[in-house]
């Protein structure tokens, strides 16, 4: 298959340049009827061919046409198309009028079918390729942020990490809620290979979602199909909405009567710096330790030791304490710090001044660089088109020793064998190489160290210098004065340079397609597509690191090597007949009859050393200290056969009715439930056709209802045993999840309505959508009481409802001859509710996290509530009756908060209340300036960083002057301490003072979880771009056809947020479990410059 595609591709490439003939040149200008000014960007095409050009900034154009060309067609969105017979003319001036019904706007819908947008009975939203390619990023999806209504994106900030893309809310409790991606009608896989443990905050890496393989340079446009009606023809897997990507195709470049190859070069460089607003600000008053108890004397926060060195006594840092509640800094005090104990340190043997480390860990982060270079060749003749492109992407991250490299080759082409038969093919090959992704979650994460467990007396540059000088793991966090081995944290530079992961992926996706026009009312499309990749993820721990869970057994080991090989292959075969007929002059019919055969095969193998490495720096399974455990293999093969039909009627450009139906037969359901059917109906009514008003050019109402069925994940029907490592004898174990051989398909039902209107010569437009989606009979592995002998069970149950509103408003407040101001506003609100769960279960735990918080689905609440301990507001008597309720938290007589004894209190909700984006674009002659704001209102996040970091006293807000005017960390006797706001049991304001100099003053030890739940709202200035295109007049005498310069800034500023010292969006990665932060990465602010040259 792969070989055939490539072969055909080259065939077309060669064929494409063959057709040449005598030509003549036609030039002219296109102007608008309202103001007479030139219109840039109008498509000028020879009718019946793909030959064409676009007008320049002043509306001028020039086009070489073949002698036999008869008619030129001028098209522009929002204008009525114009056709002019060429005759003997060589100069043609054209005037275009605003189009009342926006005739020309064609969008790509499910299965790659092009439709007039006005005829659609469901909501779609387009985003141009240019919009998502101005800022160069490793994951183009990130650039969708703020640009599409109803799409909830969460960028994890992990290097090369995954982005959560959920359209119109989560519909599945335990399954995948990520949008589906389709390129030119062909589904592309977007899974993450992050482990379940990583997603729940365990040690691991975020390997990104694989849709990031798509090269943004290849994207012409994206169309977001939001509702079930829009995606019904895709069936099961599109229940979460679809992002349809249309790639760039070859277009004609004619010069001097010659067809020639168009060449586009793009080169960009981008620099990234961490946004310090998303990093901790450290207090600078107190150093290492947990309190004044390491010794007597004047400096009880330091250890007073004899024979620190033979015959030398002195004060020593309590090295094992990864906290900063210790001795107050005093520059005149000399203390033996970690550097005193390493003979390669410049301060070896010396006591050094007791001061805050400078620079602090923000200096750990480096400048990130992104270089992207691409070249594309394209062209078209009357019979063929082709485009070949190569992009090289080379990025380094803000963490030392991190890089991501991609090489992307793509080809597409089409050839008309006859008038009736067109063949096209496309293929992309992508090689991705990652190195040094950041660890996520709690353990083994440098960011957890910086945000939770740090000694502010440590100077990160000294940690760097000692690693650079020695190549050894010399850490600040020694096991003791005379024990250099790390206790909890390695030297961060050692960890980055020695314990890094690497990963690679080789991917090929593409398709071959035949279009055969059997008659003028019917054509047949056959398409075979493939998406396949293999990936390798390797993890290393160097000899000399602290012990951590690693490898197959997850046992504590100090060194090791593991490798995970995974291969993925999906094939799709589509055969589809399209019918297209005018039944009467006013009644138009289109129909589709088709079948889709899909097979997906994923297999993987995970192997690791056991117990450590024998030879240092040799990363191979056979270098295992103990006998390696058997590798873990998986092999999953699933398939779906689908049969579908669609009918559409259009009456007089006024009323459109669509109906679809699809049968799916899935291999993952029990045989007698494997075949299931689901329908959709949609209606579009163009009411503006019936109203003749100057102020309104277009008005449409739409309404649809759809159902989508969905199947089960692989191998959820039959029980199989798991096999633990042998214990001298063979072991088997009952699996944790109970299979279920009685599963039925799950079903999503969706009702959607909307209105779209354009006013004032299309200067103002809006699109409004309302929807309600219910998913029931969910196939899910519910968490069950482990008293059942299992922790999960596959069931069919539960119902989730999503209701929402989306607004898109576009306008052009100012349009002048040389200046134009466009505004686009997106706003959406989704309300999610769990209607029912399984049997009498009213709560389902979706994930449980360190800190004792869990993410849940509770009946009557949205999916993704955060549960944990709360403040107590009620006073109860001995029988448990409430005798008083206060509006402030109750503080115990100890001065600490009363905390609920149970963790089943809802203390937050990971879902935002609403999202919005505002894009302003200003164009002046050849200049364009745009800036994008992005809002989120609501959504909560529990911060483990604050939960621990407030207790360890590292943050600057934990060192303040108290109500008595003294440092809070003075002892109470010395006027320090603090009074927790709240009431005593008798209702009077709390007046019990607690010590402010230990881990109980704030944070995990004496606070309920709710204290560290934050509102995740934000307003971000997401990006700013300035671009300049050289006018055609300047290039007229050169061989260059176009030059554009871009200056971009992304993640420019977080204008408002409530999560302290972190980006509210940052997290573990894509998945259903959001709302928990631990050791999250800072935001990287990027500044870039790019040049685009066209020849």
């Amino acid at each position, binding site marked *: 298959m792969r070989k055939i595609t490539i072969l055909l591709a080259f065939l077309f490439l060669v064929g494409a340049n063959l057709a040449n003939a005598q030509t003549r040149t036609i030039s002219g200008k296109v102007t608008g009827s309202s103001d007479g000014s030139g219109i840039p960007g109008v498509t000028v095409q020879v009718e019946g061919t793909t030959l064409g050009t676009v007008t320049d900034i002043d509306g001028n154009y020039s086009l070489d046409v073949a002698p036999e060309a008869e008619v030129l067609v001028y098209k522009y969105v929002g204008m009525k198309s114009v056709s002019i017979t060429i005759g003997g003319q060589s100069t043609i001036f054209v005037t275009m009028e605003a189009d009342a019904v926006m005739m020309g706007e064609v969008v790509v819908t499910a299965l790659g079918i092009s439709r007039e947008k006005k005829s659609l009975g469901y909501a779609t939203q387009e985003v141009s390729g240019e919009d998502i390619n101005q800022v160069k990023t490793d994951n183009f999806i990130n650039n969708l942020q703020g640009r599409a209504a109803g799409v909830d994106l969460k960028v994890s900030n992990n290097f090369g990490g995954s982005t959560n893309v959920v359209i119109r809310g989560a519909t599945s409790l335990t399954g995948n809620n990520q949008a589906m991606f389709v390129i030119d009608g062909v589904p592309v896989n977007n899974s993450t290979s992050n482990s379940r443990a990583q997603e729940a905050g365990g040690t691991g890496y975020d390997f990104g979602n694989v849709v990031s393989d798509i090269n943004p340079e290849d994207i012409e446009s994206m169309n977001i199909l939001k509702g079930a009606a829009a995606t019904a023809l895709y069936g099961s897997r599109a229940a979460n909405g679809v992002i349809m990507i249309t790639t760039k195709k070859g277009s004609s470049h004619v010069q001097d009567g010659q067809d020639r190859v168009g060449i586009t070069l793009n080169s960009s460089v981008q620099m990234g710096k961490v946004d310090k607003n998303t990093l901790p600000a450290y207090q600078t008053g107190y150093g290492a330790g947990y309190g004044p108890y390491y010794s007597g004397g004047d400096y009880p926060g330091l250890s007073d030791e004899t024979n620190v060195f033979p015959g030398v006594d002195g004060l020593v840092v309590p090295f094992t304490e990864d906290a900063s509640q210790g001795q107050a800094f005093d520059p005149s005090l000399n203390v033996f710090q970690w550097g005193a104990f390493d003979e390669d340190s410049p301060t070896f043997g010396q006591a050094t001044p007791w001061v805050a480390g400078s620079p602090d860990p923000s200096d750990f982060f480096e400048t990130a660089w992104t270089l992207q270079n691409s070249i594309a060749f394209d062209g078209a003749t009357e019979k063929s088109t082709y485009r070949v492109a190569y992009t090289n992407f080379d990025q380094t991250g803000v963490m030392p020793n991190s890089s991501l490299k991609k090489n992307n080759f793509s080809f597409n082409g089409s050839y008309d064998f006859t008038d009736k038969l067109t063949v096209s093919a496309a293929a992309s090959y992508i090689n991705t190489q990652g190195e040094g992704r950041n660890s996520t979650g709690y353990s083994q994460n440098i960011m957890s160290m910086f945000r939770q467990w740090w000694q502010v007396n440590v100077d990160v540059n000294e940690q760097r210098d000692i690693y650079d000088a020695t190549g050894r793991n010399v850490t600040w966090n020694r096991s003791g004065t005379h024990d250099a081995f790390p206790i909890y944290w390695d030297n961060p530079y050692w960890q980055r340079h020695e314990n890094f992961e690497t990963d690679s992926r080789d991917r090929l996706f593409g398709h071959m397609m035949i279009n055969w026009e059997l008659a003028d009312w019917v054509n047949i499309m056959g398409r075979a597509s493939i998406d396949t990749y293999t990936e390798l993820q390797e993890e290393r721990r160097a000899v000399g690191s602290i012990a951590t869970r690693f490898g197959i057994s997850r046992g504590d080991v*100090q060194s090791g090597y593991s490798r995970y090989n995974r291969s993925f292959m999906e*094939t799709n075969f589509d055969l589809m007949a399209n019918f297209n007929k005018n039944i009467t002059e006013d009644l138009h019919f289109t129909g589709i009859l088709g079948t889709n055969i899909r097979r997906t095969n994923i297999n993987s193998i995970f192997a690791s050393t056991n117990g450590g490495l024998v030879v240092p720096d040799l990363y191979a399974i056979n270098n295992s200290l103990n006998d390696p455990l058997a590798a873990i293999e998986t092999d999953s093969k699933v398939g779906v056969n689908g049969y579908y039909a669609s009918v559409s009627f259009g009456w007089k450009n006024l009323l459109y009715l669509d109906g679809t139906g699809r049968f799916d037969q899935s291999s993952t359901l029990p045989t007698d439930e494997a075949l299931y059917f689901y329908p959709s109906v949609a209606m579009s009514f163009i009411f503006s056709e019936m109203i003749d008003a100057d102020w309104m050019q277009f008005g449409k109402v739409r309404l649809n209802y759809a159902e989508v069925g969905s199947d089960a994940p692989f191998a959820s029907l039959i029980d199989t045993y798991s096999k633990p490592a042998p214990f001298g*004898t063979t072991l088997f174990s009952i699996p944790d999840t109970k299979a279920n051989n009685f599963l039925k398909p799950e079903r999503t039902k969706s009702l959607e309505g909307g209105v779209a209107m354009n006013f004032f010569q299309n200067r103002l437009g809006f699109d409004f959508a309302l929807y309600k989606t219910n998913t029931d009979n969910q196939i899910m592995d519910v968490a069950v009481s482990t008293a059942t002998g299992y922790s999960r069970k596959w069931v069919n149950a539960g119902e989730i409802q999503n209701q929402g509103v989306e607004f898109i408003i576009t306008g052009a407040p100012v349009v002048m001859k040389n200046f134009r101001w466009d505004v686009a506003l997106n706003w959406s609100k989704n309300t999610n509710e769990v209607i029912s769960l399984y049997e009498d279960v009213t709560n389902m735990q979706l994930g449980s996290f360190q800190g004792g918080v869990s993410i849940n689905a509770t009946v009557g609440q949205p999916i993704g509530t955060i549960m944990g301990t709360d403040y107590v507001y009620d006073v109860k008597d001995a029988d448990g009756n409430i005798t008083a309720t206060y509006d402030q938290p109750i503080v115990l007589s100890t001065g600490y908060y009363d905390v609920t004894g149970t963790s089943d209190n809802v203390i937050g909700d990971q879902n935002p209340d609403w999202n919005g984006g505002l894009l302003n674009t200003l164009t002046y002659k050849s200049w364009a300036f745009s800036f994008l704001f992005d809002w989120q209102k609501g959504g909560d996040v529990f911060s483990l960083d604050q939960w621990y970091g407030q207790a360890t006293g590292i943050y600057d807000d934990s060192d303040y002057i108290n109500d008595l005017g003294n440092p809070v960390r003075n002892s109470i006797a010395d006027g320090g301490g603090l009074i927790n706001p709240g009431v005593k049991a008798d209702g009077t304001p709390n007046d019990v003072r607690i010590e402010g100099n230990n881990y109980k003053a704030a944070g995990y030890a004496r606070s309920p979880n709710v204290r560290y739940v934050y509102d995740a709202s934000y307003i971000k200035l997401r990006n700013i771009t300035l671009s300049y295109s050289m006018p055609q007049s300047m290039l007229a005498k050169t061989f260059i056809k176009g030059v554009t310069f871009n200056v971009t800034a992304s993640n420019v500023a977080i204008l408002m947020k409530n999560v302290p010292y972190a980006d509210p969006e940052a997290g573990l990665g894509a998945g259903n479990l959001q709302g928990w932060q631990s050791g999250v990465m800072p935001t990287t602010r990027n500044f870039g410059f790019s040049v685009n040259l066209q020849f």
Partner: protein
Amino acid sequence: MKKILIILMAFLVISSCTKLEDLNKDTKRPTAVPGVTLFSNAQVNLASQIASVNVNMNVFKLWAEYWTETTYTGEANYDIINRTIADNAFEEWYRDVLMDLKDARMIIGAATFPTEAETLAAKNQLLIIDILEVFVYERMVTLWGNIPYTQALDIDNIQPKYDDAMTIYKDLLVRLDTDIAGLSTGGTESFGGADLVYHGDVPSWIMFANSLKLKMGTILSDADPTLASATINSAIAGAFTSNADNAEFYFLSATPNTNPLYVDLTLSGRQDFVATTLITDYMNPLEDPRRAAFFTFAPDTNVYLGGVYGQSSPYADFSHVGDVITTDPTLPCLLISYSEVEFYLAEAAARGFTNGTVEDHYNAGITASFDYWSVDGAADYIASAGVAYDPAKSWEEQIATQSWIAFYNNGYLGWTVYRRLGFPAMPVAVDATISEIPSRFTYPVFEQTLNPANYAEASAAIGGDLLTTKLFFDKH
């Protein structure tokens, strides 16, 4: 050309399509396995759970106040919420031990065997499985109180009701009697090498069952003296008579099958635990020779020094866990020991349940502990002031204190001695948010959300789901 392409297309479609029925099969995992492999796995998980000192799972060496935590003192101060420790333990016992035992029972019970010897062996296997189940439930009932029992381990009932703890306990005793009566000896095989405790030796399992019965009778002493006495008296004859009878589970020398304690204390490189003042203050005046096995000297000293329980206690200042324990990856987990048996017998004699001599059993219990740790000087120790049994003094204090020391490597037993007898006088952790020593684990957090009605009923039935709720046997 047209035709060629269509043919090519059709060919691709047909050739690549495997039948749906051939898909969705997990070809890497078995659907049927021998029952004995599940029994072995249950034993591994059982021993690992008891031996572990991982603060996410097993906190009893802390709660028995043998050890305290150096820097992160949450668990010593009875915080089991932050790390959902009760959830982890519940999961481990039900899912990873009991469920595998149940499945082993079902597989073995459903099988037919060609020879009578094999049939008899299978019968023995089923009874030994039952004995282990009783052992596990005994521990769970004394940890939580009421727990799911009659409706447990049934995936078709995902909200099992909780049974009354005392009722369960009595049922367990009945099961033990049946098991003991049913086991056939005389060279009859059982699990062979798949039994990682007794290697299939049936007489050893009979002794184990009797010793377990003795332990359970002792637990009931205050709650139901009549039943306790009858149970103890029927068990004495069959119980352990020497350390050679100990139910020991030996770990292996290589990861991942080492003693989990070796992972937690040695491989992890962490410095989480030091001795408590409580144990050093007991053992130091007695110059207890076992100190050398249990602890190291405090760094740079030649004394055994413990930290105040629950308070931050720098690792550099106090005694650590002894090398005998931390350097042996194969260190066995003791399910029931001979020393334990002798202390139960001493207690039974002191209570007047039996005619035995308190002092003899008391001395035998101490001696067995010395022997187990290969420590000399038991005789001198027993004779020394402060150790020698004195009938004039509280038997509870003397037996409890010495058995508490002897149970050093099994924190759960040490804590339970305190719960039953109120000795040794343990101080409440200094940073605790409760004002007394915990009497039980609270129920798992997930039971609150996954099994709420039964959770609420069980909580009410035992007198509230608190750490301090006294359980059915706890009457001191």
